[in-house]
């Protein structure tokens, strides 16, 4: 029982960060109808950003978010303008080739520049934990990450629900042609969506940097997670992706606890396939949507 509770709580905390990455991917998919296969590599860049901000500039990884978020937004916005916008009306296989290619360029550049040695970001609180009654302990960095995630998610939700630009993003994702007829500049919305998606990926990367090995290929397993989260939540659904992230976090923690931590990626992959086979519209999607 104790093991179970421990896995449930730690899983939820990690899941929150995964959710952030999943929400970013889902937003891009919703607004642009593009699956971004470079999403995991963008997370990896966020990890390195936090690492170097900490080692070179002595900025705490959580504080470095104020630099990472705007930088990543701009990076994503430009990446959309220069590359992604060219394939937006093209068949999906062209879009996949492009984003896979961009991801490969990022991870291989990282290999060249940062080498394949994993880096570890050790803060003073990296290995400290909150001890809860009953013998459960929660890692301090995971708790902080989770709280930041909740804050960012709440702000993003408010932005999407209440602001003019946020509503325009939602309208574009619900019907791109109609959005255009309302006077919404859908090309600009694509740039904004990709910028936010990139910012969320990099933020998720920075948030887990203190608890993960940082290496150039770290993005690959995150891509699979982000993808599974999107599929779980129903592609394009931001709220669904939030819940999907928590589910993946808990499933991973449970499989590490009860099977073996080597198996957690396999379990996530099996879950991914199972959802695709049984409920391709996502756990919360309505039948008939795809």
């Amino acid at each position: 029982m104790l093991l179970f509770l421990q896995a449930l709580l730690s899983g939820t905390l990690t899941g929150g960060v995964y959710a952030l990455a999943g929400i970013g991917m889902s937003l891009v998919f919703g607004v642009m109808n593009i699956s971004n296969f470079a999403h995991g590599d963008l997370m990896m860049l966020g990890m390195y950003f936090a690492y170097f901000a900490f080692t070179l500039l002595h900025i705490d990884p959580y504080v470095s978010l104020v630099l990472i978020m705007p930088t990543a937004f701009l990076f994503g916005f430009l990446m959309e303008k220069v590359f992604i916008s060219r394939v937006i009306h093209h068949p999906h296989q062209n879009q996949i080739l492009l984003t896979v290619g961009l991801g490969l360029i990022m991870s291989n550049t990282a290999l060249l520049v940062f080498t394949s040695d994993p880096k570890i970001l050790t803060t003073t609180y990296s290995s400290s934990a909150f001890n809860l009654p009953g013998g459960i302990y929660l890692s301090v960095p995971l708790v902080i990450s989770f709280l930041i995630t909740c804050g960012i998610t709440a702000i993003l939700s408010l932005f999407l629900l209440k602001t003019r630009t946020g509503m325009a993003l939602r309208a574009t994702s619900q019907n791109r042609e109609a959005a255009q007829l309302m006077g919404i500049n859908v090309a600009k919305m694509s740039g904004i969506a990709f910028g936010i998606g990139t910012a969320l990926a990099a933020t998720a990367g920075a948030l887990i940097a203190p608890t993960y090995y940082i290496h150039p290929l770290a993005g690959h397993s995150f891509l699979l997670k982000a993808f599974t989260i999107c599929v779980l939540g129903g592609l394009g659904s931001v709220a669904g992706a939030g819940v999907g992230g928590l589910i993946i976090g808990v499933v991973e923690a449970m499989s590490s606890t009860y099977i073996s931590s080597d198996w957690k990626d396999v379990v996530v992959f099996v879950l991914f396939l199972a959802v695709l086979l049984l409920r391709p519209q996502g756990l919360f999607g309505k039948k008939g949507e795809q």
Partner: protein
Amino acid sequence: MLNIQNLNAGYGEMPILRAINITIAQGEIVSVVGSNGAGKSTLLKAISGIIKSSGTITYNHESLHALAAHTIVKRGVVHVPEGRKIFPEMTVLENLMMGGYLHQKDRQTNLERVFTLFPKLAERRNQLGGTMSGGEQQMLAIGRGLMGNPKLLLLDEPSMGLSPLFTEVVFGAINTINSSGVTVLLVEQNVYQSLKISHRGYVIETGSIVLTGTGEELLNNKDVKKAFLGM
């Protein structure tokens, strides 16, 4: 107000519209009627800039060709598309707000205007667009268009799939909208109803205009009677 000369448009390599000439004067209701696949929706999409075209489209002495779709709306050319295309996951009110995306300041007055025209929308303001009935969605689509301060309203088959009662409501609304000073370009398969309320009309067949005249002339034309009215 709108002058279309030698307009050609299509999808990819496939030409659909050939050498279309249409003029619309301020204050008119003009209908374009024709059978399925004749190119009516393509014509409206070319005007509103959703698809590319060649030829000239002049609106109040300005060429619309160089402009992006979202800029054309700004000029007051508002397109209510075929099949309503409302935002399904937004409430009725949010849908209307999106219609007023470019006109935040006039939102309140426009909203009252829409609610007076379609009281049903006021009742259902918090319902999700996607859960409205077909007829209600059509009212919402027209209402959403009105939120964009149209000077020229392009309506694509507003009576499609509507019961006779809803059809009456929609055609009545078009008349009301027109008498408030909005010029209307109406695309319809309900040929009788639309020609009856139109000042002028065009008949389009496989991408070309084959006949034009006042609404009444077309209603009495024997080819129109035979082809569309089953007489």
